[in-house]
């Protein structure tokens, strides 16, 4: 913890408080989603993010407003850390008209273009080439924005991983490949689905690569700052592997036959929230009252979101055929 403490001091209470708050918000938001799912208020596939909060919070803090993000279906944490309105995210999970995707996308497909949040993608690895294209466009348009692509360890097995990394390096696109390695793709340990280490493979494309503790928000943030600076400076893509762990099953349907409760407990001991909290307290940057404030604020925000979602209307049936294609043609 000493490194975290010293880093904590460097960084200043302001930003650390924000990190802590965001991680707590995501944690609580996800716990509530789990409850709402069992109540049938959220349906379809639901993939919770608890345990991985440090990844989302650490990565998003390193981005600028003009940057673009694509992620996978386990996307609530990324959306909230990027600053999407929790009310509209919750409304989306409930399939309401006020949701960020108008109730059409659901948990796996959150979009908010105003925030550069270009979507959660439910086809594994399908968004990797999209992130290369977003980066390519930035270069061609002479913008200095970067494209962040978040995916899991299991996605590395797909052919598009290979095609995307190769073209990204070939064309020097400002793309950051952020792999959330939570050790499993559904129930398969990544060591059984990949013949090598992820960074070793990524490095083979001649891409700078780093592995960080994905349950240490400061470590994630540092790595992302380096990655973003590299890409923004026109040096091409950068690969970050964050070692993390999901506390819940793959989705709400997961019987979790493939892992031992004990393993989960081991990782909970390294919980990202507890660690930052301890580091801040050790550095004298967090007293009891401030922490309690945060807890209350989180509770408030999540409850408001649920209430907003509940109160919001269903999309009207007359909207079924909306947004099928964008018309008219221009020019």
């Amino acid at each position, binding site marked *: 913890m000493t490194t975290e403490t010293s880093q904590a001091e460097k960084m200043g209470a302001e930003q650390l408080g924000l990190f802590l708050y965001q991680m707590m918000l995501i944690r609580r938001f996800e716990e509530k989603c789990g409850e709402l799912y069992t109540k049938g208020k959220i349906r*379809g596939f639901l993939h919770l993010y608890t345990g991985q909060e440090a990844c989302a919070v650490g990565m998003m803090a390193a981005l600028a407003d003009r940057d673009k993000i694509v992620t996978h279906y386990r996307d609530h944490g990324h959306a909230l850390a990027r600053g999407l309105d929790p009310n509209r995210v919750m409304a989306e999970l409930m399939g309401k008209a006020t949701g960020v995707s108008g109730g059409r996308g659901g948990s*796996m497909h959150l979009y908010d273009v105003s925030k550069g949040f270009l979507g959660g993608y439910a086809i594994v690895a399908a968004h990797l080439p999209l992130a290369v294209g977003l980066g390519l466009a930035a270069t061609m348009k002479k913008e200095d924005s970067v494209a962040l692509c978040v995916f899991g360890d299991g996605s590395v097995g797909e*052919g598009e991983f290979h095609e995307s990394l190769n073209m990204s390096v070939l064309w020097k696109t400002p793309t950051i490949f952020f792999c959330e390695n939570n050790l499993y*793709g559904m*129930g398969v340990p990544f060591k059984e689905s990949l013949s090598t280490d992820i960074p070793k493979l990524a490095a083979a494309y001649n891409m700078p690569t780093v592995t960080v503790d994905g349950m240490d928000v400061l470590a994630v943030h540092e790595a992302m700052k380096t990655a973003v600076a590299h890409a923004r400076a026109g040096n091409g893509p950068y690969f970050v592997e964050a070692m993390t762990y999901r506390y819940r099953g793959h989705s709400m349907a997961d019987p979790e*036959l493939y892992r031992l409760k004990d393993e989960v407990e081991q990782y909970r001991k390294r919980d990202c929230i507890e660690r930052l909290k301890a580091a801040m307290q050790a550095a004298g940057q967090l007293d009891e009252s401030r922490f309690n404030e945060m807890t209350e604020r989180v509770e408030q925000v999540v409850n408001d979101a649920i209430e907003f979602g509940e109160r919001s209307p269903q*999309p009207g049936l007359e909207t079924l055929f909306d947004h099928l294609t964008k018309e008219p043609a221009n020019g």
Partner: protein
Amino acid sequence: MVEMRMRDALREALREELIRDERVFLMGEDIGAYGGSYAVTKGLLEEFGEERVKDTPIAESGMVGIGIGAAMAGLHPMVEMMTINFSFLALDQIVNSAAKLYHMSNGQINVPLVIRMASGGGSQLAATHSHSLEGLYAHFPGLKVVCPSNAADAKGLLKRAFRDQNTVIFIEHTANYALKGEVPDDPDYLVEFGVANILREGSDVTLIGYSGSVHQATRAADMLAQQEEISAEVIDLRTIRPLDMDTVIASVKKTNRAVIVEDDWLFGGFGGELSAQIMERAFDWLDAPVARVSCKDVPLPYNRNLEFAALPSEEDVVEAVLRMFKE
């Protein structure tokens, strides 16, 4: 006869085939320790071991290609595609390798492979995860396309698929997994391909379905009988390649009316083929144009109301039938 869910009937078929034929083995994402995302393969890893129940990386094209290679070498693999939505990624292997090798090699190489995939909407999985693409696969010569509607057929057809010497696309509607039915326990119980099943006899209109849509058709037939005194014959195609058109035509020549029910999109869907063939072979018997009841022409939305508005319902079928009688 034992009562079981379609999911369990499929598992029984896999078990029996693994026992019967040592060439049979299973590959797929999370079919092992996880038990299969729809629990069809649950327990098979424990019973048959890693050699014959293989978890694969998430790599649909490679996984199907490996299955093809193993089949070329004389094994009889089953590849579980988890869901039909991911099968786009393996389509080149299915169409250009599995379906064509026997023809292109002038009969030297056949590909005895079973590719299972879960299909269908209705579970609020949204646009990328709710496809029904039976008709897409049926378009390609060299393939066989099977889509059971109930537990007994599921078992008999899946066992039959492992007797076939070609690649069989075996499509399971997620809404059918939990449906219970009486299933023969005879290990030699097979359901032949290309034999449609007349689920109920009727005289006024023929309702044609496959996979999940058979159930909208059946419920519609009930409503028509009770509310409208219209007697509907219901046909479950069971396999759409090979397709048992004779049974359909015989029925339409008796009822003079036909409604096709399918979960897939209408435009350019398989219903068009059925409709066209009925016209081609029973033109003079038709009292009204063949009607098609299918998914509305939109990607399936997550919202429950919108999704159900898009999917074909028994009410839609009844409406289509009544329109025929009005005209």
